[in-house]
């Protein structure tokens, strides 16, 4: 590890309340859940923070249950727990599918949904699913709780509306009646960061979201509107290719990503008989 370990501090709260109070008192505290993203930065010696708040023992943030008809997933639920949850696999199987494609088993046992979202990487594999699920992010601080639509959570590349004194405590996902579809495209069959990751919920007015093709995950509202307005999937694919904003980077090219987005939407159309 390139970061000097001796210079790091770790605070271990006993309850969510204690954690929130600590965050209110010390805005430099970085919450860590599974630490799978944070550790990569520490190992490379590029992570700026030195004071950490360990959320891992906070069992109450790990619950998955049904609340007011919505499925509520605690921020600390791991990708492995999500795949095993009957509530998830019966109501929103594409979330389980996304979690199954995150890293390997070790990462899935440790990495959390809250961490995947709070980390804010546009390549986070659960993000397009939460976007098409019209999820709600539940944020809590010492001074109270607020609910933010997932689609208003990100404000730019790795920036969110979360205040430094707030924790993500849960996600609420309303029921989905229409067909669900998910596809991750990485450089190899497993253990790869997405080059394109797409989730779709069908219906008269479908919901489409794509990751790794812009500074944040993108809800493709123009494409959605075009389909709602009667466009064919082939026509909609062209609109989607224009709507996403990919770049050339070390993993892929903008033109490849655009083309694959279009193809995947056509595939969704074909798979779901449209």
């Amino acid at each position: 590890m390139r970061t000097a370990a001796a210079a790091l501090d770790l605070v271990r709260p006993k309850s969510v309340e204690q954690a929130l109070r600590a965050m209110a008192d010390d805005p430099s505290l970085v919450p860590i859940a599974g630490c799978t993203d944070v550790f990569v930065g520490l190992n490379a010696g590029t992570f700026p923070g030195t004071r950490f708040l360990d959320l891992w023992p906070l069992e109450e943030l790990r619950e998955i249950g049904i609340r007011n008809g919505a499925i509520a997933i605690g921020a600390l639920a791991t990708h492995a727990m999500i795949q095993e949850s009957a509530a998830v696999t019966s109501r929103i199987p594409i979330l389980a599918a996304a979690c199954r494609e995150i890293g390997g088993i070790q990462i899935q046992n440790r990495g959390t949904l809250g961490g995947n979202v709070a980390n804010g990487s546009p390549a986070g594999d659960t993000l397009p699913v939460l976007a098409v699920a019209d999820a709600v992010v539940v944020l809590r601080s010492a001074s109270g709780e607020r609910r933010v639509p997932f689609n208003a959570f990100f404000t730019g590349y790795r920036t969110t509306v979360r205040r430094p004194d707030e924790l993500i405590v849960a996600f609420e996902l309303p029921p989905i009646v229409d067909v669900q579809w998910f596809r991750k495209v990485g450089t190899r069959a497993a253990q790869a960061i997405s080059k394109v990751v797409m989730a779709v919920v069908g219906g008269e007015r479908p919901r489409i979201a794509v990751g790794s093709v812009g500074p944040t995950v993108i809800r493709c509202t123009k494409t959605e509107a075009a389909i709602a307005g009667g466009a064919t999937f082939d026509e909609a694919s062209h609109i989607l290719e224009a709507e996403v904003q990919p770049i050339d980077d070390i993993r892929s090219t903008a033109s490849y990503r655009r083309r694959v987005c279009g193809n995947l939407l056509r595939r969704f159309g074909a798979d779901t008989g449209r």
Partner: protein
Amino acid sequence: MPAVGTNVPRKDSTEKVTGTARYVDDLVFPGMLHARTIRSTIPRGRIRDVRLSFDRAGFTIIDHRDVTGRNVVALIEDDQPLLAEREIRHVAEPILLLAHEDLDTLRRARVDIDYEPLEPLFDPTRSTQLLKDLRIVKGDVEQALAGAEVVVEGEYRTGHQEQLYIEPNGVIAVPENGGVTVHGSLQCPFYVHKALRIALGLPDDRIRVVQTETGGGFGGKEEYPSVIAAHAALLALKAKRPVKLIYDRLEDMLATTKRHPSIVRHRTGVTRDGRLVAMDIEVLMDGGAYVTLSPVVLSRGAIHAAGPYRCDHVRIEARAVGTNTPPNGAFRGFGAPQTQFAVEVQMERIAEALSMDPARLRELNALRPGDTTATGQRVEADCSALQVLQQAVERSDFHGKRERYAGTNRGIGLSLFFHGAGFTGSGEVKLASRAALCTTERGVRILVGSAEIGQGTRTMHAQIVADSLGIPYEDVETGLPDTSNVPDSGPTVASRTCMVVGGILQRCASDLRERIGDMHPREHFTKHGATVVTKEYEPPHGIAWDDDTYRGDAYATYAWACDVAEVEMDPDTYEIRPIHFTAVQDIGKAIHPVLVAGQIEGGTAQGIGYALIEEVVMREGAMANAQMTNYLVPTTLDTPTMDVVIVETPSHHGPFGAKGVGEMPIDGPAPAIVNAIRHLGLDIRQIPATPERIAEAACVSA
């Protein structure tokens, strides 16, 4: 019971499986310091000023002025400095070395360097810095081309490839006995020994190199350990304390050698019925900033550039040139994967141009015993190119599948290839390797400089010695080479450790058997004390090579193989998934069939990575994806089922008929896969054939 040909337990298995094997980073010496290398951040320029912005208490600091011997990495040419003086030729060039007992303090130390930047050159086609050129001429190519019924031309490109051994480079230097001992993860203890002698200016007997258990090499620990060992040794001698220098993955990928990128052009004349009449080949390799091993990589690449084919008129012009990237170096296959990729895709395009079955084209032209190669070498009875081809075609149902897959998203392709065992040309004669056996209270001990790097050296050598002496395998002792007590058996490279070093050991064994009569060596030891037999390499009879003209017997012998790749393309994402692989490989004799199959499977997987996903992204002369997050190698899910067939046509050059198996398996997968992609109707001539490149080709052909 004979050991050769059976799957005896590996000599190193218990320690490795139980985790008790000690790798260099597991070792701790009293008073040991940790070291760090300060490197250039620009690809070309001059150093103006170096400022140390930290408290120097407890630090040992070294720059080029502290080099006690010559400031060079002693290899083929002495052009590479151990520590840059003024001129910078690539990103990550070592400038300064720091050591301190506390790792965190060491890491925090800030060094600022001012440069006068110069315009770097990254395009090898524009380079005027010639590192090596050579020419192989057989017959009259121009005339034959002029008379050919059909001429096919093509250009083929291959990228860098990172060895990605699981254990990064690392050493510990310990000052002792008026000199220094270096313990390290390495393939060639005596290369390191020589480099240290020149860098430190110490006599031979003051330098000792001990290999530690090594977590893979693939060529990446052939020449590079000379650099890191000299760095640690300079620090240790100045500090008068042991110094540990271990690279993390990022530094290892950024600073150490990779496979040479290549551009190969072919102009081939053929008759309408598919006989090769002329092969005109130009090979260009990008050597990076210093010569390192480029001349010999180029040489092996050029000798294999015409493939395992008979052709009377061949001209191969090969050049390695300099660019401002970190030097490229040894990597499994050593130039042959690049040039055999080119010739095998060219063969496919010839078949396409003639509307001919690709297997038939190869069958017509494959070398048979008695034919001559491009260098004029007459191949012997162990030349089995035709047999491996026919067997692979049959086993894979090549023709049936070629028909069934046509027009689907599946494709099937093949490659026919060969690999010379041992050093090129007069290399083995110049090396004059030695190996020894010593009787012990258990039986006999093998004394060689050959390194176990995961491939099974110790086990395979012990099998050869056991059967040659007629004693149980368990009675043969092996160990880690230590230059102070083993003879120099040459480097552990070039698919030579079985055929060449194993051959010397076999001679040691028969000599020892003569000396001790019918006795078990243990019994002889008890009665007479230790007996040591040392033997030197003896050049095989009737082998002649001319370094100046590149004519003659380039290798004592060759191994032969044919790969068949079946792939499937995802029409939405353009990903190519290998679905099945057939590898028929004739290596003379499988001393240990499981280890041999492991080499073939592993080399094939590494070749699949080379073909499809392993892409070194270079930006401004530096590897931009120098982490395992973004430089990806195949996982088991990316690796297809493999039908590995070991063919054993014995060669009289190796022990029990064995040739080499370490490298050949990586020569074939890339062209077989690209030819399978061509079967899908996509014109690919470059690797890695990433989905991005496939998408472009699909766009053109649509």
